[in-house]
């Protein structure tokens, strides 16, 4: 290989390295360039320069607030802090569930409010959960999950926002830690896209619960505040 001008090789090589930095090469060609970069310092230096040049475009990535539950999932993965503990072992909750006192009474309301689209292609199951007030909280939500669109739509039916606090939605399966689905407003309908793990786990019988947490949601990935509403997902 020629090393013209002593900084990054021939024009062809420089372009190859730029294409490599832009991830435009495929298969064998990419592998060949990667091998050369690993063994030829001039090409490695050229790659570094291209990455520096291109990184000036980083400002064009638009800042987008991340969903609140992401960081708790990161912590759970790194530090293993998602062991079941706390409120979902709450006796009143399970007693209530066992007694069937949380029968889905608001199904019809849920269907009307959510106006589910019965697309021809969507033969997947749809679930609704009425999250009814706990301990006199006066907070009620209804959630609708369409397995076709993989979105949960949730809307507050009763109750008001609490100053300096946020409501956080969780899904719970028996003998599993509750998993946050993020902070939800009481006064508007929101759609929550489900990650692949949640898509796999949420189904008939999954319990959805809303807790009252500090602003921005629980920082630990575990619910810390009181349960204000709870309901079970039921097929419709």
């Amino acid at each position, binding site marked *: 290989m020629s090393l013209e001008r002593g900084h990054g090789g021939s*024009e062809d090589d*420089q*372009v190859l390295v*730029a*294409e490599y930095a*832009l*991830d*435009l090469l*495929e*298969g*064998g060609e*990419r*592998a060949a360039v*990667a*091998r050369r*970069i*690993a063994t030829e310092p001039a090409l490695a230096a050229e*790659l*570094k320069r291209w*990455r*520096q*040049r*291109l*990184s*000036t*475009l*980083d400002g*064009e*990535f*638009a*800042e*987008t*607030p*991340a*969903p609140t539950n*992401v*960081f708790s*999932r*990161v*912590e759970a*993965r*790194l*530090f293993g802090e998602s062991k079941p503990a706390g409120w979902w072992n709450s006796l009143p909750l399970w007693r209530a569930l066992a007694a069937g006192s949380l029968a889905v009474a608001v199904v019809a309301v849920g269907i009307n409010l959510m106006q589910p689209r019965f697309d021809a292609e969507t033969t997947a199951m749809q679930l609704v959960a009425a999250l009814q007030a706990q301990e006199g909280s006066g907070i009620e939500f209804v959630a609708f999950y369409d397995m076709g669109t*993989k979105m949960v739509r949730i809307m507050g039916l009763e109750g008001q926002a609490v100053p300096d606090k946020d409501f956080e939605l969780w899904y719970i399966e028996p003998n599993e830690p509750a998993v946050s689905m993020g902070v939800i407003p009481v006064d508007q309908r929101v759609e929550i*896209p*489900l*990650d*692949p793990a949640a898509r796999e786990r949420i189904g008939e019988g999954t319990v959805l619960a809303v807790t009252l947490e500090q602003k921005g949601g629980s*920082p630990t990935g575990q619910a810390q505040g009181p349960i204000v509403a709870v309901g079970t997902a039921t097929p419709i």
Partner: protein
Amino acid sequence: MSPSSSADIADLIARCALRDRRAFRDLYGRTSAKLFGVTLRILKDRAEAEEALQEVYVKIWQRADRYVAGGYSPISWLVAVARNHALDILRARKPVADDIDAALEVADAGPDPEQAAVDTGERARIEGCLGELEPAKADAVRGAYLDGFSYEELAARHSVPLNTMRTWLRRSLIKLRECLSG
């Protein structure tokens, strides 16, 4: 999110390398919107971008000791971690071409802090140099870097044959380099 100075971010990364979880939380708070912007733009699927963001911060925690402060922009390093991870996912989506070697080689070529920084002078220069390209060609360079578009995707988006796009982009890169070295 309040703007954070490079020095602040570099300091937080250094403290992450020392296993300071509070620094990690702070770093997440200050930078997650930017990195979510990266994974979202490249993956164009909210659920996948969230999943990727989670994995990106796991990597940042695990590799914080590989960031070398001094002269280099720490946010560029973080963006490079996010961008490379999102591109790995993009590649995994596509039917695998021919060889496993490529995947191995590229997986090894992880983000290097020194690869990701630029002084303000060079920033102004690359913007000026991109401005000297025809708009469609500058767009193609941006699409390759910011969206992770392949040659096929770029050709389709600009409605030109694949080989034309290759020629466009290669010439644009040569011009860019000349402009930047001039």
